[in-house]
């Protein structure tokens, strides 16, 4: 075995550098392809400056859990956002914390119930009022099974429809048949229901009485349950001969909580759909 001990090995010609067992060194660099293998690199010693921009492909990244998202934790280190449940949305946790998947906020109102009735005596919605809401919106499109009837509403207490004479309401109506316009009013004070449309509703399924009711404080035992409605409807016969617009408001005088609401026609059965929304208190 021979050993060479020198301080400097210089190239013989500037074009070739120096070759040692097939590894060529030239101008202070290893120039032989694939001459540096993984084992020659010290562990944990590749700095970010050694990696070119846009060089890390998805395939180069370590596998993770399906559905996770990459984020940064409070220390600024990469972290995974755990996979949420179906329908959840990515929700910020504010500064200093990674986001998480959570249920969507849902806006200012929640849909609590949808009722669709076909030729029934009434459409009743009961048991959906909670302390989460002081006010409720009912959106309706209903028509009578027989013409010349009025759309009316009753409250429910303890699950039972109330027919006591504690209903008070007043309303205005606008009628127009293409040539004649009329304004009228209707009211009840000590009635057994709330009116929300005046006389002569059509039974035409294409022309339902459509509108919305704001129902307030149904669960209160210190304030009366009140309502306001705005509706469009149509005059009998079928097809309708005139359009009608109604605005009504009223109250039920009682300190007993209202548990539900009942839509019906005074002179016959009802058809249609009513949706109950809760208006969030906060």
């Amino acid at each position, binding site marked *: 075995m021979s050993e060479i001990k020198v301080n400097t090995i210089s190239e013989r010609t500037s074009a070739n550098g120096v070759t040692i067992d097939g590894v060529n060194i030239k101008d202070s660099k290893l120039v032989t392809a694939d001459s540096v293998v993984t084992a020659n690199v010290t562990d944990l010693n590749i700095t970010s400056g050694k990696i070119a921009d846009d060089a890390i492909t998805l395939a180069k990244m370590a596998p993770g859990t399906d559905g996770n998202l990459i984020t940064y934790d409070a220390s600024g280190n990469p972290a995974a956002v755990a996979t949420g449940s179906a329908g959840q949305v990515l929700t910020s946790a504010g500064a200093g914390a990674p986001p998480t998947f959570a249920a969507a906020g849902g806006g200012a109102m929640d849909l609590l*119930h*949808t*009722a*669709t*009735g076909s030729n*029934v*005596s*009434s*459409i*009743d*919605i*009961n*048991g959906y009022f909670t302390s989460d809401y002081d006010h409720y919106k009912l959106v309706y499109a209903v028509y009578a099974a027989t013409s*010349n*009837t*009025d759309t009316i509403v009753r409250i429910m207490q303890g699950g039972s429809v109330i*027919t006591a004479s504690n209903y008070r309401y007043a309303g205005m109506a606008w009628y127009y048949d293409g040539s004649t316009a009329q304004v009228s009013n209707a009211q009840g004070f000590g009635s057994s229901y709330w009116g929300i449309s005046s*006389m002569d509703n059509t039974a035409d399924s294409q022309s339902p009485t459509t509108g919305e009711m704001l129902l307030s404080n149904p669960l209160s035992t210190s304030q009366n349950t009140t309502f306001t409605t705005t509706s469009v409807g149509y005059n009998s016969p079928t097809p309708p001969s005139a359009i009608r617009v109604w605005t009504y408001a009223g109250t039920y005088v009682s300190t007993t909580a209202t548990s539900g609401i009942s839509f019906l026609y*005074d*002179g*016959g059965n009802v058809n249609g759909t009513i949706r109950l929304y809760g208006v969030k208190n906060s």
Partner: protein
Amino acid sequence: MTMYKLLNGERVELTAEEETARIAEIEQANIRRQAREAAKVEEENKKASGKQKLKDLGLDDDEIQALIGV
């Protein structure tokens, strides 16, 4: 004929008591409607007779329209 209501999306048969009350209510509504229709006819008749009396006094249709809107 059996009568039904829709309660929280379920079609529920009315009790005998509810059905009796409902039938009575429909009958009352029919009576009110007939009264309304009779009153409407009477009102129309009075409008027509009043208009005719104004015409008999010499007012033309435009003058009557301006005065009472019919």
